[in-house]
């Protein structure tokens, strides 16, 4: 184990490449079956209430539209601070996730509205495609940090990864991590929908963790399929194994396609059964979502009031 840990942490690309070669392939049928089996677990009443509040506090409330405006960003900031205006017992969300040029607006509005403890995450490095020069990616990241982002969601170069140029992928992550320094957390988006196989997901997860990712994130939300349960399972296994080898806990963030309370609770079951209970906190598990929050609120209202709510009883954005 010691040699393996060294391979992952000594920072040399050669030893990481060597390590990646020793990774066992993912049993695709087994991963699908295990994820499906864990999804059948029934979570009700008190456990459900706990899970809903936990899921709310893990949400990276996201708006990543070309049509985003200051007004929309401020609206989701308000929602992040007080998701259900009628119920102050609802916890605030994990973070706000916006495009780079909206970071300053979000930070300022959160600070002015009592959301000073909610971090702002910026999608960076030519999100979502990542097709730009390193200079552009560097500027993108520096801008976001200067504007007050404390979490950077970067995309990897999938083209380079798929054509075997691991060095490019690795060095970019290392470089962006160096820009983040101690000012920002780095989440590395693998865009699993474009990586094709679970083997690639496992490989990319270890590559990102070895390069210094604080979080590994499934998707940009712009490519389908996004955060499918088996993919999240493979990534959770990777962070668990990485922890066993190095003693460092890396976070996981599924994003894209998680729209219902049921989906969110399935993710929490996956976390508990794969990585372990230590990961059941917003510091190590986040869910990138926008529509999900309303469904969680409706389910929470159902548990509180005893009857089913409707979309007319929660705020739009």
């Amino acid at each position: 184990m010691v040699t393996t840990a060294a391979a992952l942490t000594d920072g040399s690309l050669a030893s990481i490449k060597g390590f990646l070669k020793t990774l066992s392939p993912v049993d695709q049928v087994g991963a699908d079956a295990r994820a499906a089996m864990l999804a059948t677990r029934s979570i009700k009443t008190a456990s459900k209430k706990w899970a809903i509040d936990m899921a709310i506090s893990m949400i990276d409330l996201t708006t990543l539209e070309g049509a985003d405006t200051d007004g929309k960003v401020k609206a989701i900031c308000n929602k992040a601070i007080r998701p259900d205006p009628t119920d102050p017992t609802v916890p605030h969300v994990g973070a706000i996730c916006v495009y780079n040029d909206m970071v300053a607006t979000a930070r300022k509005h959160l600070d002015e509205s009592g959301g000073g403890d909610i971090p702002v995450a910026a999608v960076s490095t030519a999100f979502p495609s990542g097709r730009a020069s390193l200079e552009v990616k560097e500027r993108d990241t520096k801008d976001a940090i200067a504007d007050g982002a404390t979490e950077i969601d970067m995309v990897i170069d999938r083209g380079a990864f798929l054509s075997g140029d691991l060095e490019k992928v690795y060095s970019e992550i290392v470089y962006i991590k160096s820009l983040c320094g101690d000012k920002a957390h780095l989440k590395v988006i693998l865009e699993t929908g474009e990586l094709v196989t679970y083997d690639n997901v496992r490989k990319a997860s270890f590559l990102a963790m070895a390069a210094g990712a604080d979080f590994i994130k499934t998707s940009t939300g712009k490519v389908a399929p996004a955060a499918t349960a088996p993919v999240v399972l493979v990534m959770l296994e990777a962070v668990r194994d990485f922890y066993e080898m190095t003693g460092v806990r890396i976070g996981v963030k599924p994003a894209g396609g998680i729209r219902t309370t049921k989906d969110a609770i399935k993710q929490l079951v996956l976390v508990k059964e794969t990585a372990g209970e230590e990961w059941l906190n917003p510091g190590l598990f986040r869910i990138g979502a926008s529509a999900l929050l309303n469904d969680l609120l409706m389910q929470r209202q159902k548990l509180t009031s005893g009857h089913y709510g409707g979309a007319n009883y929660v705020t739009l954005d």
Partner: protein
Amino acid sequence: MSDSRIDVKKTYKLFIGGAFPRSESGRTYEVKDSKGNFIANPSLASRKDLRDAVVAARGAHGGWSGATAFNRGQILYRIAEMMEGRTAQFVDEIVALEGVTPSVAKKQVEEAIDLWVWYSGWCDKIGSIYGSTNAVSGSFYNFTIPEALGVVTVFAPAKPSLLGLVQSLAPVLAGGNTAIVIASEKYPLGAITLSEALGTSDLPGGVVNILTGSPAELAPWASSHMDIDGIDASGLSTAQEKDLRIAGADNLKRIFRFKEAKSPQRVLSFMENKTVWHPIGV
């Protein structure tokens, strides 16, 4: 064909969002014919199925209420066309369940089909007949137009099973609402066969959702559900209706009972008047 052929029996399922799922609860119940012989095992819908149906109906509401009234009329007429081809199946089911003669059953089916045609005609007329241009003291045009209420749950009269269902469902759709039908517990086969006709009627998925099971079990959940706007309680007992009204008081549910089969009032009951002011000369 040899005598040893095994019948291919139908699995009786729900109709939610244009698909035919089983109950998420996995439950079924027995339906017996008028002589007490086993006839089918339809799904026993749970409150979760009801909730799924509400989500489907709400999702379909924008498209259905936003479609032109003429287009809605065409689709209701199409439902009549599709039912006509299934007349024999409807007749057989009514004969078996209600214990009436084939000629009585046939008459009921024909009336039900004709009722679709009657209500299809109302789709593009209800606004012009019951809307109005109002005189106001100012330089404004002032119009009042009936618009769809939203999602309506239908508890149709148990008997006559098919006609009762159609006379409750058709006016709800004609007004541009989307519907959740809770079929009669004892006589659900007409509703199930109707769902198969609806599935081939150009009706967008989710506009009609049909649940079989226990109306008594589902009624309180339907009534307290914040996202259901109206209920046709014609098929419930007065005691059940009372509970329904209590549970629905919080969310101002529109709950009605009807007697006449054919009446534009049935359409109007599940519509809301919208008044628009428009400046003259601009």
